[in-house]
Every structure is written in C-alpha cells, then in structure tokens.
C-alpha cells in the first residue's frame, strides 16, 4: 500500500466532504454554494432573465379567454382581456413575473413569518406583528367573509394568476433573493392579499400616541402635554377649504411644564426605536447593513392637489399626486394598464400583492391618495382574572372569556423558535405593556381590505361615481382627491372614523372594564371632511388637519403634522390662476419652504437685536450667511444647511424638558407649529435651557446661540461658508434601499431638491420620499406623466431595475403610453408581448 495514495485519498475525501458540505448546506448567511453557483440553475441564471423576450406565451389554468399583454418600452404591461376576471388573473401573473420576491416578503412581514426565512434575527419584528393582531385579524376576516364577496373573489382570481406563473417558472425566473436566501416561493392565496393591505394599514395608521402621551404627561404634566401635542393644529390650512384667502394662525400661550422630578429613562418609553417604529421605517429586514436605514422622519407625508378648469391654462381639470412612503428597490409601486372592453380601462399603480390599481386614472377621471392620519386606534386598560395565563376579563362587573390564539414562530429549518399565546377581548388584541394590560381597537383589524372599492373607482366615469365607489372604503383612512373630464374636482377624507363616548376624545387610555368606553359607531359619510368644486378653484391635501376646528370641532385626530407642505402648495396654487401641467409637475419638487419663510426672519431679528447690544463677529457672520439665503432647498444651495442645522439645535434646546433625566433622547418632539407658537412668547419658560441652571434664557438668546453653534459646527465640518461642503446636495441625500438592505443593490446618496417640510420632503436617513409622482390632465385626450424611484423589474440586473432613479432625482416625469388598442402602440415603443392562454403553462 502506498502511503502517498493513502494520504492523497484521505485528502480527497476530506475535500470532497468539505466541498459537498458547503455545496449543500448553509454556512451562516451564505447559501449552499452548489445550487447557488450552479451556472445553469443558480444565481447566474438570473442574468438570463434580466430582459424580457420580445415574444412569449404563458398559460393560466382557469383563464376564460386568451389575454394579450404588451409591455411598452418603459416596462409597463398593458393588459387586454375580455373579462375583468381574466384581467385580474393576468395582473397576478405579470406582477409575479416582475415582483415575486417583493410580494411574498411583504405578505410574510405582515404575517409575522420572517423567521422562516431569516431565523431568530427576525423574531422580535415577527412577534410585534403578530402581537398587534395583523395575521389573526386577516385570517378571521377571511373566514368570516362571504366567499362570493368582491374582495374574496378578486383575491382568488389574482392568486390563480400568480400561481400560474409559479407553476411554469423556470430556474432563471426565480428571483435572485430566493436563491440568495435559499428559500422557495410559496403558492399565493387570498390571505396574502389581505395581509398586504393590512401591512399598508400598519404603515399608515398604526399610531401609539395614546400610550406615549401617558409617558409625556409624567414628564411635563397634563396641561402642558395637551398644549404641546394638541388636538387642533395652531396653523390652519385645512384640506376642506375654509373660505379664506390665507392660512389662519391660532397661536396660544403655552402653559409651563409642570414642576416635577423628571423620571429615569427606565420609567419612560424612550424615543429610541421600538420594534414597531423600527419595522415600519426600515426596509422589511435589512440583513447585512442594519444601520443603513433610518426611522420615519416626522416631516414626511404625501401630497395631492387638483385644479379646476377655471384656473388651468388649458381649461381642463388637472390632478397631481405624490404619495410619500418608504423608498425601496424594487419600488413599492408597480405600474400597469388594464383594459376590458366596456368595463374598465384604467392606468396607474398597484401594490404587488393587491389585485387592483390603487392610484391612477382612466379615460374620464384621475385620483390620488394622501394619508389622513386620523386617530383610528384606541387603548383600553383591562382587568384580567389572573396575571399569568389569563382566561377572562372584566366587563360591566362580569367576567368574559378571552379569545386565545397560539402563535408558533418557525425557524429556517422548520424548528420552533418560540410559542406565544395571544389574547383578545371583544375590542381587539391584548398588549402587556409597562402601562398595564391594554386592549387595542383599531379599524385596520376590522376589515379585510378595500379592494372592492378600488375596483369600483377604476371604472368610475365621474367624480360622483368615484366617491360613490369609495363609500365602502374602510381602512387605512385616506384623503382621496379626484378630478374628471367634465371639470369637476373633489376631495374627501375617507375611511372609518370612530365615534367615541363622552367628549369623543381619542387621546386617552380608556377604562376597559366598562362597555360605556366602547366606540359608538362610525362617522356618517356625509360628515367626512371634504369638498366638491370649491369656489377657490383648487383643492389640496398634504396630511394636514382636514377641517378647521372653527368649522367643526369633532375629534378626528391629534398632533397633526405641521402643515408646511400644505401652506406651500396652497400658496403656489393661490398665486397662479392659469396653472399648466408642467407647473404642476414642477410643484412636486418645488424648492420653496413655508417653514423657512417663518423661522428665518425670527433668527435674523433675534440676531439683529443681539448685535444692537454689542459686536459679535461670529453671530454677525452667521446672520449674514443666513440672510443671503433665498430660502430654497436647491441641490447647489449653500445656505439651507445652516438653517436646518440651526433648527436642529433650536429644537434640542427648546424641548429639553422632554428628555428624561439621565437619558439623551426626547420622549417625543412637538410639531414645529408649536415652536412657531412659542416664537410669539419671548419669555416663555420653555425657552429656558435646563442645562444652564444658573441662567434663565429667553427666546432671543436661544435663537442666537442655536444659530451661532450651528454655524460654528458647520464651519468646523465643512470649512468656510460657500465652500462645496455647504452645498445642500452634499448634506442631504435620498437613499433608495433594496428590500433586504443591501447597499450594493440600492441607490444611495442621491442628491435631493427639498428638505424637511418641502413638497418634496427629505429628512432623517433619506429613506422616505415621493414613492410615485403623477400629473394628469383630463382633456379630450387624457395626458399623464409619471415616475417613481426604481423600475418595473425586480431583477437586480435588468435594465428596468432602477432605470427611473435619475429622472426621479431630477424631478422629470415621463409621458405614459395609454393606448386604446394594442395596435395603437408604436412597435418602437413596444418591449415585449405576452399571450396568456387557458391551460398548462408553456413559455418561449
């Protein structure tokens, strides 16, 4: 026996074992290398599916008649079907073709099933999603729904389309992310669509303000809390026109903070991200770069506005919409055109997983949404029969059975990571918090989605028909703007708004032991905030308080965003009685800012008064730099950064009372409209900086020191003013993150025209912003221009993956193709054609 051969064989066996092991098994975050590197079936195959074939065929088992799909050169599928049922099936098919991973990831996130893909790292976020009852309610809603209802039927048709794509999918069609994670796609079902809708509800309407408010009260007292986080905004530029030619300022003197010992951070819910905040603001699960994303900025939201023919240059109604959401690759939106003769001819964007167009237009109307931000979630303090493993809760002096549900969290290999028991009262899920046992009632949990309403909107031919279709819309509450070809414009905050007992206040945690605390019903439709064809000739919403409390003092919500964007768009529209669609598009990235218009003079006047007392070279220079600013957030602007830095310092100093002793973070930050209120009261105790116990500061001192300190810091960081380091584009970026948070698959450090409070807002980590921009002119011919940050394809090496990023950064909109017939599309504008037939799948 040759010892050489023994050694060689031993080495070969070890090597064979090792290569086979890494070939077949995961190693940490690495997928099994064998199937991953396999050029025929692994990730390399993804390159082969980067671009669509010029012609292809697919089959859907239950299709009624063949469906023709033509992709234009922007990657938008135009679906021509004989029936709506077939169109919805085809929609599921084409969306899955481009965005399969995104669909499943979103549905899994809402279902609290990310651990099955990501293991224990996702356990906390999964627990949070399940604890607030999202999957529980989705399953209950579906189980209780009429199987012939529109929402269930559409979900089923959509799933048939998705699953037909899955049935015939080749290895090259399996998205990169599945291969990277070494997971297989699951069959789609109706529940996933409901979960996706509820996920949007979570993003837009999950507000824990009531619980946080209790903590704030411990710091500054009830009276000050009510003033700093008011039910009514001190600056009124409401969505429902108030028949004024300018905004109304309702400045009131703020009561001082209550004299009390500030509690330790352990006793206060700190502002640091809670699981809920983190999940909402981050891409679903950034894997390798968790710090690459940030929390939801307080100044972002959405805009929409419409101009009636009387104020448009063309004499046609104009409509603009730009919902602001997470900026992700692929985008949250997918653009599509669906035509069913004599039934529907709609163009717009859908959310992958939802069987319908959410925002868009047809031949007669156009519509868009902003988040209403209404308070649709309440907490109730409950009494249970025992602390551990409770079975009953007290209601009106009697014990009632708690509903229970076992939640099992599975790991990557199907192992059980955790088992939780959820409890619910008749109001909703129980939360065991540091504030006691609370039950939660939330409109988002009560209905399975509003897909049926969206379908009705798609085929509406007038403003009135659109509003009628939307009467059944439930949650999350949206402010819906609509315009039609006849020249009508309308807006309405739509959704279910609870009627509460007593004074209707939704800011308190109510007594759960009494049924008298329960909601009494929902607002009647005719009381929803809104307007139709107002005399001012335009309508606008930007997440501001919908109705001026002088017109209606009915409680709808609290702590409304400061209406900087609403002030700006109303100013632009008031001053232009001949609006063009080009100007509408320009407004979406308008560099002006109402916040700067209000605060810059305050800084400069304070500096002027201080300089009158004696020379201060640094202050003089800082004030000079600020005074030269045109108050515009253009990319090359070198002064905006000073103002934003000064505002940041100012905010820190003024609201130091909201920082618990020993903690470096505020419990909450009042809106900037409250700061604006404070400007009117130069000696308010809120100006006093707690860190300087021996001195009592006034307004001017805080304004001046904020400006000087910001100026000093910027000079230290970026050199002399007017250097390139001061350019806005070098200080403020947008970051469009890949869904898994990989920087290599993201579009990072994008320059942005806009800042906090701009119509094109950018704040925090720059991971939120205008997720879709649309301008529609409703003339004899519907003319629409759109864009979004990303591209139609979810394939990371497709030319359509991120091809729209540059135009989005530049504020450029593209005219859409809106052909009446497939033949109307110029061959040069066609990218690909797909024919869907009934039967088993075949492709190419």
């Amino acid at each position: 026996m040759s010892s050489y051969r023994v050694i060689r064989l031993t080495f070969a066996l070890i090597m064979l074992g090792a290569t086979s092991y890494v070939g077949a098994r995961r190693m940490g975050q690495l997928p099994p290398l064998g199937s991953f590197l396999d050029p025929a079936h692994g990730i390399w195959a993804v390159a082969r599916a980067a671009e669509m074939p010029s012609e292809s065929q697919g089959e859907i088992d239950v299709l009624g008649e063949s469906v023709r799909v033509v992709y234009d050169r922007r990657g938008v599928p135009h679906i021509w079907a004989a029936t709506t049922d077939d169109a919805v099936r085809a929609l599921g098919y084409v969306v899955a073709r481009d965005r399969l991973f995104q669909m499943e990831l979103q549905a899994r996130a809402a279902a609290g099933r990310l651990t099955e893909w990501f293991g224990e790292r996702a356990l906390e976020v999964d627990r949070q999603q399940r604890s607030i009852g999202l999957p529980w309610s989705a399953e209950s809603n579906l189980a209780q729904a009429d199987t012939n209802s529109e929402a269930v039927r559409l979900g089923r048709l959509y799933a048939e389309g998705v699953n037909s794509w899955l049935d015939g999918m080749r290895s090259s069609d399996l998205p990169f992310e599945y291969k990277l994670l070494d997971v297989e796609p699951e069959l789609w079902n109706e529940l996933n669509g409901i979960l996706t809708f509820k996920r949007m509800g979570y993003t837009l309407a999950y507000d824990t303000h009531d619980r946080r408010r209790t903590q704030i009260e411990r710091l500054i007292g009830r009276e000050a809390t009510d003033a700093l986080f008011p039910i009514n905004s001190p600056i009124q530029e409401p969505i429902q026109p108030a028949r004024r030619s300018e905004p109304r300022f309702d400045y009131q003197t703020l009561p001082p903070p209550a004299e009390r010992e500030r509690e330790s951070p352990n006793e206060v819910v700190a502002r640091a991200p809670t699981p809920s905040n983190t999940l909402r603001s981050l891409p679903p699960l950034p894997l390798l770069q968790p710090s690459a994303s940030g929390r939801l900025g307080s100044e972002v939201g959405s805009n929409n506005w419409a101009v009636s023919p009387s104020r448009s240059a063309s004499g046609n109604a104009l409509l603009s919409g730009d919902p602001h959401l997470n900026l992700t690759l692929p985008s949250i939106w997918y653009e599509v055109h669906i035509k069913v003769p004599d039934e529907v001819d709609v163009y717009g964007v859908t959310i992958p997983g939802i069987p319908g167009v959410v925002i868009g237009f047809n031949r007669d109307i156009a519509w868009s949404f902003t988040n209403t931000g209404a308070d649709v979630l309440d907490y109730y303090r409950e009494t249970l029969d025992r602390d551990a493993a409770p079975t009953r809760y007290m209601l009106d002096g009697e014990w009632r059975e708690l509903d229970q549900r076992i939640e099992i969290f599975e790991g990557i290999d199907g192992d059980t990571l955790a088992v939780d028991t959820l409890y619910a009262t008749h109001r909703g899920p129980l939360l065991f918090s540091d504030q006691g046992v609370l039950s939660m009632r939330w409109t988002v949990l009560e209905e399975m989605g509003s897909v049926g309403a969206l379908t009705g909107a798609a085929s509406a031919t007038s403003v009135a028909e659109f509003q009628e279709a939307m009467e059944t819309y439930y949650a999350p509450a949206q402010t819906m703007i609509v315009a039609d070809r006849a020249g009508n414009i309308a807006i309405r905050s739509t959704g279910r708004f609870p009627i509460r007992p007593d004074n209707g206040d939704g800011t308190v945690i109510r007594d759960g032991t009494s049924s008298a605390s329960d909601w009494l019903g929902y607002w009647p439709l005719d009381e929803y905030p809104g307007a139709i064809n107002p005399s001012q000739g335009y309508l606008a919403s930007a997440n501001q308080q919908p109705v001026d409390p002088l017109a209606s003092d009915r409680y709808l919500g609290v702590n409304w965003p400061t209406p900087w964007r609403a002030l700006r768009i109303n100013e632009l529209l008031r001053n232009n009685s001949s609006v063009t669609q080009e100007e509408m598009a320009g407004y979406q990235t308008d560099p002006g800012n109402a916040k700067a218009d209000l605060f810059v003079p305050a800084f400069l006047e304070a500096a002027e008064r201080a300089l009158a007392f004696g020379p201060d070279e640094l202050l003089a220079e800082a004030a000079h730099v600020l005074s030269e600013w045109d108050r515009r957030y253009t990319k090359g602007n070198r002064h905006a950064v000073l103002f934003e830095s000064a505002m940041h310092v100012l905010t820190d100093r003024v609201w130091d009372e909201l920082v618990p002793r020993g903690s470096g973070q505020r419990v909450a930050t009042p809106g900037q409209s409250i700061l604006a209120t404070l400007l009117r009261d130069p000696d308010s105790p809120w100006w006093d900086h707690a860190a300087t116990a021996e001195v009592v500061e006034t307004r001017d001192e805080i304004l001046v020191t904020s400006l000087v300190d910001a100026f000093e810091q910027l000079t230290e960081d970026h050199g002399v003013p007017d250097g390139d380091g001061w350019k806005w584009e070098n200080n403020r970026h947008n970051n469009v993150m890949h869904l898994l948070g990989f920087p290599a698959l993201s579009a990072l450090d994008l320059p942005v025209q806009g800042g906090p409070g701009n119509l094109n807002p950018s704040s925090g980590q720059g991971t939120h912003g205008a997720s879709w921009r649309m301008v529609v002119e409703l003339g004899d011919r519907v003319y629409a221009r759109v864009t979004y940050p990303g591209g139609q394809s979810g394939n990371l090496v497709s030319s359509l993956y991120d091809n729209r990023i540059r135009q989005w950064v530049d504020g450029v909109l593209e005219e859409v193709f809106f052909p009446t017939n497939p033949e109307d599309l110029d061959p040069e504008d066609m990218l690909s054609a797909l024919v869907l037939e009934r039967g088993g799948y075949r492709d190419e």
Partner: protein
Amino acid sequence: MNRWKLLQLILMGPAFAAATFLVGWLGVPLLACFWGWYDRIENRPALVGSVSAGIGWLIMLLWTSVNGPVLLLAQRTAAIWQVPTIAFLALTILFPMGLAWSAGIVGMTLRHGLSARAGSN
C-alpha cells in the same frame, strides 16, 4: 499532450456542463467520480476531470453572458458578500474543480484500490 488527451479535454468540458444542466451541481462529482473510475488511458484522470469541470462551468458562464449581464451580476453579488468581483468569479470556477478532483480520486481508488497501480495526479 497527445491528440487523445486534447480531445478528452475538449469533450469533457461540455460533458460537465451537460451534467450540471441535467442534474444540477451534484452532476459534477458524479461525472468526475465516474471518469476517475472509468478512465484507463489517462494517467491523471482526476486532474483532467477537475480542469474539465472548471471549463464546463466557464462555458456555461460564457453562454449566459451572451444572454445576460453576467459581469454586472457578479459585481453586485460580490458586493453583497463584500469580496472582489474576480474572487467571486474565481469561486464559481474553483468550486467545481475542487469537487471534481476529489471525486475523481475517489473514483480512481474505487477501481484500482490503494495498492494497485494507478495513474498519479
């Protein structure tokens, strides 16, 4: 290298590509093991199998690059793993080579045993 050996190399590359296409990455060690067991002429069958496996996967990569942006895919995947692009591409070639060589040695040993005369590597 005689003509037979050259022909072997030319044919074995596509054979490994075909094996991968048909049965996935496990086709590489299976074919290499068989080749190590079968070959009676080549005195370095494991080495030939290893090189051929690398060539086979390279052929498939080249074919894929005709139909899609392979280099961009390599760049982005390498960036995710935080390794140089060339290292990721090299891994794609070295992985089947390692599999094939070790499986080839096993195949040779199965046929010839440890004490019998067999080709070297």
